[in-house]
């Protein structure tokens, strides 16, 4: 990941801190109230915090999505502010999809729990059909925040490429690319399509141990484990 520049370093650090907080909430369960915005000592409209929330996308609301924990008004404001401050770059698949995922999660988690259909239509997913196994592994890893309990067009697309994603998972493990391994493992868990011979649970446990230095890897592992348990 790029961390050049003062703002870049600040965003990267804040992404790590938010990811760590969310991963801890997913790991520890719904026993304690979750209020991400209250845990950040900063202004509610701090652009760095909004940028970090935009990078993490729907995962900012993961404790609600995965465990049903109540969403604070501050967290809704943080996610909404991130979506408004950083609109999608329509030429970028990850930017478009992650923005859509954040907006859809906001619609569902907000007052009244509006269905996802209220949000804009899903972006296209044709790239998942034609790409090589390396390309779709890389792409699905970028979109891991969308691998959650809510069905999207990405889930059947991931299931259709289960063998390729499994191959990508193994490659990421051998390369010690823990974030990519955890992200792809999260997709395999969400789609429920991992071959038994892959040893996904053991692989994720290994990533949790050796890859915990990157909070995004830890977040993906906790999300994958929650999906494997069938929570929500």
């Amino acid at each position: 990941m790029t961390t050049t520049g003062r703002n870049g370093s600040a965003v990267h650090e804040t992404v790590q801190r938010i990811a760590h907080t969310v991963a801890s909430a997913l790991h520890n369960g719904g026993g304690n109230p979750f209020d991400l915005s209250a845990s950040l000592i900063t202004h509610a409209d701090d652009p760095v915090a909004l940028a970090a929330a935009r990078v993490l996308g729907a995962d900012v609301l993961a404790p609600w999505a995965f465990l049903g924990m109540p969403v604070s008004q501050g967290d809704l404001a943080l996610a909404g502010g991130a979506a408004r401050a950083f609109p999608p770059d329509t030429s970028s698949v990850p930017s478009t999809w992650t923005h859509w995922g954040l907006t859809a999660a906001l619609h569902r988690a907000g007052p009244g729990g509006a269905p996802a259909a209220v949000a804009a239509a899903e972006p296209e997913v044709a790239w998942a059909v034609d790409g090589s196994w390396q390309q779709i592994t890389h792409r699905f890893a970028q979109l891991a925040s969308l691998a959650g309990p809510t069905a999207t067009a990405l889930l059947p697309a991931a299931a259709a490429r289960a063998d390729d994603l499994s191959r990508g998972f193994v490659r990421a493990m051998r390369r010690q690319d823990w974030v990519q391994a955890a992200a792809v493992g999260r997709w395999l868990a969400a789609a429920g399509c991992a071959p038994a011979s892959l040893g996904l649970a053991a692989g994720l446990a290994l990533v949790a141990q050796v890859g915990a230095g990157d909070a995004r890897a830890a977040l993906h592992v906790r999300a994958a484990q929650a999906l494997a348990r069938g929570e929500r």
Partner: protein
Amino acid sequence: MLPTKTRAGVTAPTDELVEEVEALLSPTEADGTFHDTAECLGALLGGGEGLLSPPTPRPKPKK
């Protein structure tokens, strides 16, 4: 839940911040050289066959 700190001091999303967000959303694939197992096996067998083959016939030195 322990509070965490963020760096303040920026009042609005700058172009630099937008670029940073897009870069973090679309990280590039890590560089590396990867080998296909079947190709490696073929190269190994081919190389082994070459090493195990008899030496090139050469004329005997005259006494």
